[in-house]
């Protein structure tokens, strides 16, 4: 990806490192440490071995025969990032940064989290490597992702609910930066996606490239040809860039699917590249397309999937969208639930709400493609851990009754 970088940390017009002066020196050190691991060939092997030993890598590429027959077009393959330890692709980035933290000799890690996936992955990594861990999470996300909060705390992390701003992912990022400017001597900030100041976009994309490297070998072995298209959901963009990097120089259509929320013609969505509400801006340490008003104030976003509910997008993807290398589409909340339901019934596979966005667009395109063509959907995470969110989204009556009964039970036993 380096050839597209005219200025350090830039991808076309996007990226950079818009950081307060107090972080200049810590970023200098981080860049140095990152440069060293890139130059050290044993590092990648250490990383691959760790992921094989601890996180089920390589993850399978599953042929979805029933879905393929259902749509009657392209052969649909699913890259199973849900089978990572902790249930999502987030583990790839986090374990990579964990190895980096060990080399830097720091003892504490902090992270932001939206859905809680990155927070759980970071808390897991911290437990394994023996680091102290603090996770910043918007109050709204704490409320809608309680099971993840529970696991983070059980894994030994401190979870700090962020009560400022929109109380979602962007506010958690601001708060993590505020921690970091005070604690940078002993603390590393484990950024969760391919956003933020340089070198985070490039570094996180590098760790996530393990998805695409595997997927390319797997599809060639199984289908004996490259896929016609690859689909991934896009929050910050890390799972998408992870798989896209396997097919960068190939004649393969790359499709990023954003959160269409209640529709890109409403003000309740998080689509930066689709729709007309985003524009160029600089926030959270980098330049990209942001959902913002004319003055440059960030707008409130909405998605059924907490992990996609974010105002910005990776500078690398902004560039790939602008150059036409990646096509963008949006999936609405309603479409997402339908695709999720169909995938569960047809394949016995439960994608996360985030990942289900990629399924929506793949299902729209597959019927119009030839039977000899293949497509890959990157299933970034599993949905069964999101049982509260998904049951709520389906408005499931028996689940509601269970919760009410359980709550009554707790009330009685606590004498309230």
């Amino acid at each position, binding site marked *: 990806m380096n050839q597209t970088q005219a200025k350090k940390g830039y991808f076309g017009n996007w990226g950079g490192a818009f950081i307060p002066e107090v*972080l200049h020196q810590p970023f200098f050190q981080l860049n140095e440490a990152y440069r060293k691991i890139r130059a050290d060939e044993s590092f990648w092997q250490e990383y691959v071995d760790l992921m094989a030993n601890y996180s089920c890598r390589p993850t399978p590429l599953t042929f979805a025969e029933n879905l393929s027959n259902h749509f009657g077009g392209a052969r649909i393959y699913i890259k199973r990032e849900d089978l990572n330890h902790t249930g999502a692709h987030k583990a790839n980035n986090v374990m990579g940064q964990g190895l980096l933290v060990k080399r830097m000799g720091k003892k504490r890690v902090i992270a932001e989290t939206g859905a809680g996936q990155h927070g759980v992955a970071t808390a897991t990594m911290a437990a394994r490597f023996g680091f102290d861990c603090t996770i910043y999470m918007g109050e709204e996300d704490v409320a809608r992702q309680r099971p993840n909060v529970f696991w983070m705390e059980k894994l030994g992390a401190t979870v700090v609910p962020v009560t*400022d701003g929109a109380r979602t992912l962007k506010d958690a990022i*601001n708060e993590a930066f505020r921690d970091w*400017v005070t604690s940078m001597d002993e603390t590393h900030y484990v950024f969760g996606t391919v956003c933020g100041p340089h070198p985070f976009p490039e570094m996180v994309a590098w760790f996530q490239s393990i998805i695409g490297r595997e997927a390319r070998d797997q599809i060639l072995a199984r289908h004996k040809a490259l896929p016609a298209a690859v689909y991934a959901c896009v929050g910050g963009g890390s799972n998408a860039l992870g798989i896209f990097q396997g097919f960068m120089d190939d004649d393969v259509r790359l499709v990023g699917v954003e959160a269409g929320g209640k529709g890109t013609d409403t003000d309740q969505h998080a689509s930066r590249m689709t729709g007309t509400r985003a524009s160029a801006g600089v*926030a959270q*340490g980098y330049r990209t397309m942001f959902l*913002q008003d004319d003055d440059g104030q960030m707008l409130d976003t909405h998605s059924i999937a907490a992990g996609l509910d974010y105002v910005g997008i990776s500078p690398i993807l902004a560039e790939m969208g602008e150059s036409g290398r990646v096509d963008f589409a949006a999936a609405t909340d309603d479409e997402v639930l339908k695709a999720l339901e169909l995938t569960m019934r047809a394949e016995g596979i439960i994608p996360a709400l985030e990942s289900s966005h990629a399924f929506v667009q793949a299902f729209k395109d597959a019927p119009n493609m030839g039977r000899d063509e293949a497509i890959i959907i990157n299933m970034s995470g599993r949905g069964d851990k999101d049982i509260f969110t998904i049951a709520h989204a389906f408005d499931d009556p028996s689940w509601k009754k269970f919760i009410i009964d359980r709550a009554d039970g707790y009330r009685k036993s606590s004498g309230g």
Partner: protein
Amino acid sequence: MDLRTDIEQRLKHKPILLMTHLVLGYPSLGVNREVIRAMAENGVDCIELQIPFSEPMADGPVILRANQDALKQGIRVEDCFRFAGEIIREFPGVNFLFMTYYNIIFRYGEEAFLRRAAEIGMRGFIVPDLPPEEGETYLRISRELGTAPIMFFTPTSTPERMRKVAELGDGFIYCVARKGVTGKQTEIDETLADHLARYREATDLPLAVGFGISSRKDVALLEGKADMAVIGTATIRLVDEQGAGAVGPFIASLTRS
């Protein structure tokens, strides 16, 4: 007279200068005006007018909430420009600087923003998330206009880094007394004295010291070590708790010996 020369002139008559800060539109432009009057009448030398931003990454909880509250009440960048223009005309004895985050300037159009600010008499700019590496256009246009792009020294800055940023900056250097965000109390102790000595060595520009100063005692300890004391969060808290009327006596108390 450029900002640096003005500051050096003032330092001939005072042991230390004062710079205060407020968030435009918090709690209202009306209260901002009263507060500025009280500051000006009590001898404040520079005032930072912060244009609110939804993501004030370098600010602590008090200023963060002031930003949010001002935005919730609907303050626009246009309102800030109009208000600043009036205030600068009304209080010619004070140097005014815009403090804001880079996106506000970027969205307005960097050149248009800086030109308009210079036209209304703004003397300089404090943009905490714009390091010189990303600020080529900002620095070039500021030089053309004769406005001061304020640079930062921090406890983590190396001597080479300080010399580099000082060369690119003008007006004064904003010295961060400790790591962290705005609004926390700083012990003015040995480590601060060490930092200030390092800062002094790296530049001839006047040194303004901020982050957490709230009393005469703090200011007195800076005399002889720094050129300007920066009072940020303390006045916002004061106005929250006691109203604009408390600002005049507070400011007067900071330099009374």
